[in-house]
């Protein structure tokens, strides 16, 4: 019961608290302590120090442990920087949004933890929809036209997508007709255990509907547009939260149905669908990187790319699956770094257009160098984690029965790297002729410290590669019935 | 005396005799509902009598088509009326497949009316004819998805038999019949140029469909047209009422009682509909008709799938 209280009830209570107490500093300190508690408990559950016993429709397995830790980690850092972020001057209209910020953030934590920990499809659905509802007003933080449009599109598209996922869940019920699962609740583990008895046609339909529906939320092609708009127009901490954890929440639903479909005859079909989804996302990122002129959109497309890579890895299976799981951690941390530095740049230049942002290295050297490091990290340069996880995914692809896909993937990644590099080096180095003012007097603020800490964390995890993470991922692969 | 032989002729005489009364009845109710005293119920008879006495004048530009088509129209309508059962009375013309004949005799009547309207050469009448032809195109499927779907389900092809196959005993069939009758009601409104589709009272040429086609007819020709339009209205009324006979209880008296009560209810419904609705825009009429067809298709699908 204690963990239920910490993971779900406490954030809800805090959210209510934030609706009553209007002082931003108090809200911040309470939210931060909640997130620390959440992180500590998630970590001890992950490390096996704490044995959980959750009520109702919740339980913990290796997958939810793992994803919960990622969520908790991302959330902690986002809350940590939120206060210094909120202190920045904004337009008068956006001033009002600050009052709702921590309220919605805490509600988001409750909903997302519930989605991660749920072991019942219905519960998962309700919680996943609740995360959308909590994030949508946060996208509208700046209260300008673009943010409004992004919020509308995100809310609408994701609501419809989630509705489709619900149809998929109903199809899953249909597939259980005539088996011993008929009339039972939609618990994951019961379905996984008795998956062989499910009707394959309905199971396939269910997989397609859940995958397509949730892919609006995962942000993989061809349903990525709402997510890209939202991520690029939301305030940076929220964008980091969405890229780092919200997308994984949706991916979790796909993983659950994938786990069910694994022992059945439809397994190959599901794998093919995931591979197509992944490759298509890489392709979309590849195409749009050529023409993107907005650096936050560029980062959003980078999210599409990396989630596509994770999906691809899951679809390939084996070693690539392990790589995909590692990629989920590294990408989540990397996205926080990227969005926070990009947010710094944005607050200085007041523009998201690449053409208006020049000579960042001169005007804000600390942010500039960190941004450069973050770019190198996301592109898979060692010693940052993405390198190791991508290598694993590539290795898995090479030794799978579809090695030709590796060539295609490499090709896409190479061009994405080149185009991102072009944009980022333009921003960092390009000197504007009539602008040679203020050189290198950016003071070291809290966000820089956070980013450096995150980079250290990332490098530590990826270089040391703690055995506990490896063991947990191996447990997940065992749950998915893969033997390496 | 064997009444079986006589029931056909009696039925057709009843139809011909009562049809104007039915129209007058509707008009009277409509007048009362809109707060007027209105013309007497027997007014259609007086109109017919007046027209019958008058001399026929044809336009100079018209050909023989204009002269023969009122008569053909009238006769053909009567032939169609002769195929309808009143209560349990077997109609005069009844054979397997007469549902098709019924649909196309009505089509023939319309064809001649359109031809005659175009024959005169007036632009207004041509416009009316074109509208009539367009809407007929959308109205035709409704017939086949109402009565036709009952025929399809029972496997019978004679109108008399089709109606006799209706058994109002299980719920899904009752719903099926009710929805059929809704579709048929829309069909009746369209075919008889009643209110939401066409306004029988207006004499503004631009908005008329049916009335504009007979602008240039007079005297005996107009008498024939008018009379056949009354009969047509009554034909559709019978089509509508016949859905609701408890055909399993075979009693002539009960049939007549239901027929009279049904006519009264239907006329009241028509009067109410005409009072509370306004005429549709011309461009909205096809979708209104398609709506009725859609109901018919859905109905047929649902019924065949649940059986």
């Amino acid at each position, binding site marked *: 019961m204690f963990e239920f209280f910490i993971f779900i009830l406490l954030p809800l209570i805090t959210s209510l608290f934030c609706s009553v107490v209007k002082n931003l500093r108090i809200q911040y300190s309470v939210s931060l302590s909640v997130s620390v508690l959440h992180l500590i408990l998630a970590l001890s559950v992950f490390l096996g120090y704490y044995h959980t016993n959750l009520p109702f*429709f919740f339980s913990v397995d290796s997958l939810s442990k793992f994803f919960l830790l990622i969520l908790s980690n991302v959330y902690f850092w986002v809350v940590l920087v939120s206060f210094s972020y909120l202190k920045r001057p904004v337009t008068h209209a956006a001033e009002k949004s600050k009052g709702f910020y921590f309220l919605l953030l805490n509600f988001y934590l409750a909903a997302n933890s519930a989605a991660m920990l749920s072991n019942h499809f219905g519960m998962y659905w309700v919680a996943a929809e609740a995360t959308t*509802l909590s994030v949508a007003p946060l996208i509208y933080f700046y209260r300008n036209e673009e943010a409004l449009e992004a919020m509308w599109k995100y809310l609408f598209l994701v609501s419809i997508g989630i*509705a489709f996922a619900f149809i998929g869940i109903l199809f899953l019920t249909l597939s259980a007709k005539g088996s011993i699962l008929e009339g039972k*609740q*939609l618990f994951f583990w019961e379905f996984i255990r008795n998956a062989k008895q499910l009707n394959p046609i309905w199971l396939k339909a269910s997989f397609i509907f859940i995958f397509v529906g949730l892919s609006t939320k995962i942000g993989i092609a061809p349903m990525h547009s709402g997510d890209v708009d939202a991520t690029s127009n939301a305030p940076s901490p929220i964008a980091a939260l969405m890229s780092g954890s919200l997308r994984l929440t949706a991916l979790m639903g796909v993983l659950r149905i994938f786990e069910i479909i694994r022992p059945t005859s439809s397994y190959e079909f599901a794998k093919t669908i995931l591979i197509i989804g992944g490759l298509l996302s890489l392709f979309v990122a590849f195409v749009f990187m050529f023409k993107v002129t907005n650096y936050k959109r560029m980062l959003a497309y980078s999210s599409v790319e990396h989630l596509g890579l994770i999906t691809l890895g899951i679809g390939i299976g084996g070693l690539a699956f392990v790589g995909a799981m590692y990629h989920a951690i590294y990408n989540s941390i990397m996205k926080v770094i990227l969005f926070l530095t990009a947010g710094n740049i944005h607050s200085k230049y007041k523009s998201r257009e690449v053409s208006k942002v020049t000579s960042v290295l001169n005007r804000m050297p600390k942010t500039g160098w960190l941004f450069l490091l973050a770019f190198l990290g996301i592109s898979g340069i060692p010693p940052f984690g993405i390198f190791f996880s991508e290598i694993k995914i590539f290795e898995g692809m090479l030794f799978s029965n579809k090695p030709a896909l590796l060539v295609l993937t490499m090709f896409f990644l190479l061009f994405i790297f080149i185009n991102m590099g072009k944009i980022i080096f333009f921003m960092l180095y390009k000197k504007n002729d009539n602008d040679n003012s203020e050189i290198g007097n950016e003071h070291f603020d809290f966000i820089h410290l956070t980013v450096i800490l995150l980079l250290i964390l990332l490098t530590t995890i990826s270089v040391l590669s703690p055995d506990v993470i490896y063991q947990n991922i191996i447990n997940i692969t065992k749950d998915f019935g893969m033997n390496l | 005396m064997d009444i079986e032989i006589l029931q056909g002729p009696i039925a057709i005489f009843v139809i011909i005799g009562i049809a104007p009364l039915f129209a007058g009845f509707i008009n009277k109710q409509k007048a009362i509902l809109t707060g007027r005293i209105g013309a007497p119920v027997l007014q259609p008879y007086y109109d017919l009598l007046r027209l019958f006495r008058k001399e026929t004048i044809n336009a100079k530009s018209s050909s023989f088509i204009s002269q023969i088509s009122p008569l053909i129209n009238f006769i053909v309508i009567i032939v169609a009326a002769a195929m309808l059962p009143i209560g349990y009375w077997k109609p005069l013309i009844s054979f397997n497949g007469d549902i098709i004949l019924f649909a196309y005799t009505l089509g023939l009547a319309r064809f001649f009316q359109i031809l005659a309207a175009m024959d005169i050469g007036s632009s207004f009448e041509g416009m009316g004819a074109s509208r009539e032809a367009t809407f007929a195109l959308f109205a035709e499927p409704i017939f086949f998805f109402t009565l036709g779907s009952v025929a399809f389900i029972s496997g019978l092809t004679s109108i008399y038999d089709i109606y006799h196959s209706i058994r109002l005993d299980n719920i899904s069939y009752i*719903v099926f019949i009710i929805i059929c009758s809704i579709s048929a009601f829309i069909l009746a409104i369209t075919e008889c140029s009643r209110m939401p589709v066409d306004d029988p009272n207006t004499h503004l040429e631009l908005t008329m469909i049916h009335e504009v086609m007979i602008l240039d007819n007079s005297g005996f020709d107009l008498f024939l047209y008018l009379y056949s339009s009354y009969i047509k209205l009554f034909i559709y009324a019978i089509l509508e009422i016949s859905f609701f006979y408890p055909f399993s209880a075979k009693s002539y008296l009960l049939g007549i009682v239901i027929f009279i009560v049904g006519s009264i209810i239907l006329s009241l419904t028509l009067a109410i509909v005409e009072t509370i609705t306004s005429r549709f825009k011309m461009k*909205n009429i096809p*979708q209104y008709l398609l*709506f009725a067809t*859609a109901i018919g298709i859905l109905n047929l699908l649902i019924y065949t799938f649940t059986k």
Partner: protein
Amino acid sequence: MGNVLSILFCLSLFYVSITSRVKGYVTVLQIQGVLLSLIIVIPFIYPFSIYGIILPATLLLVKVFLIPRYINKIILDLDIRRVIDPTIQQFSFLLLVIATMVVIFVVSNILSQSTELNVIPFASGFSAIVIGIYIIMFRRKLIVHVAGFLILENGIFLFGTAVASELPMMIELGTLLDVFVVVFLMGIAINKISTTLDGFDVTALGRLKD
């Protein structure tokens, strides 16, 4: 009885595809809400169970009173023009709807031979889902999009009764609450869009693209 109510549900779909009034959409939403609550309340009348009444009552409250009133309020507040803005002719739209429904009914009839399911609620629900998407695709007004989304949700609900899914009541209530909050947020968004972007149409939303 469920079948009859589902047929009425289908008729409401036809109505929604020819009406050109925003008000007509709201009425249809109310009718559908009543139909859905009737469908789910029927099994609990004999024998009567107070526990079974909670969900239909909540459904009735949310789908017949709260949401339609909220939409009406938005329409009044923003003085949205009373006609919808279709992008294709109503006639073609209805044709499309008919074709879709025929296909769905035939396919679900074929499917019902291999799986045990209730054809009519199943097909009606699925038709509502598709027609909801059509409404979103072929109408310009954002408020009509919301109505289309709600029709889609109603379809899913009906569909759920057809496959006899055994979701616990707590979760059903959760889904209802989620839908209500979604509509609430959409309403706020429309409000903001009409003031900041000066329009109630999708044409007002064209800033974000690559």
